[in-house]
């Protein structure tokens, strides 16, 4: 009798936890269109660092321990698109002037050789 009640209680608790998680996902529209999930990410970004800070303050007050603050992530300003684009432009312009430059260099080389053999 007690075992059955206990297993029923366990099932209800598990069911409510799982149902709560599903409802949270539905309420916050995390699995919806990309705009909504982007907005959810932005909201989380606003809420989480102050919450972490308050939690660390609370822990410090209760236990005297100080949770070290994580350093801010480094801002990397490397634009792959810019470097790729400028690389493509450089390669293509080099290829387009290659015949002309080859002609010029071969003329110069020929003049040099002629002068040396005079």
């Amino acid at each position, binding site marked *: 009798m007690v075992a059955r009640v206990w297993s029923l209680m366990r099932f209800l608790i*598990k*069911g409510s*936890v*799982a149902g709560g*998680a*599903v409802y949270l*996902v539905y309420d916050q529209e*995390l*699995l919806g*269109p*990309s*705009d909504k*999930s*982007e*907005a*959810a*990410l*932005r909201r989380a970004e606003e809420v989480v660092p102050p919450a972490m800070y308050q939690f660390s303050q609370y822990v410090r007050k209760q236990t005297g321990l100080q949770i070290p603050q994580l350093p801010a992530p480094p801002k990397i300003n490397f634009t792959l*698109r810019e470097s790729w684009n400028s690389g493509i432009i450089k390669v293509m312009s080099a290829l387009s002037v290659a015949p002309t430059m080859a002609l010029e260099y071969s003329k110069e080389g020929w003049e040099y050789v002629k002068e040396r053999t005079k």
Partner: protein
Amino acid sequence: MSESDLGRKWDRCLADAVVKIGTGFGLGVVFSLTFFKRRMWPLAFGSGMGLGMAYSNCQHDFQAPYLLHGKYVKEQEQ
């Protein structure tokens, strides 16, 4: 599609993918712990579903170049 629009679309796709895979993984963890005796397959299933949903959203986004996306602006208190 201009370069900046393309960049914004890619950003939105990546953010969406992160959120969806994380949500799927989280739901998988919850269900694995509550109903499926700590097996691994709900996690894989949830993450896979999230990845699939994100891919589908990205695909629609890139294939419909003239669909405008709204921005969520915080209300300014008067």
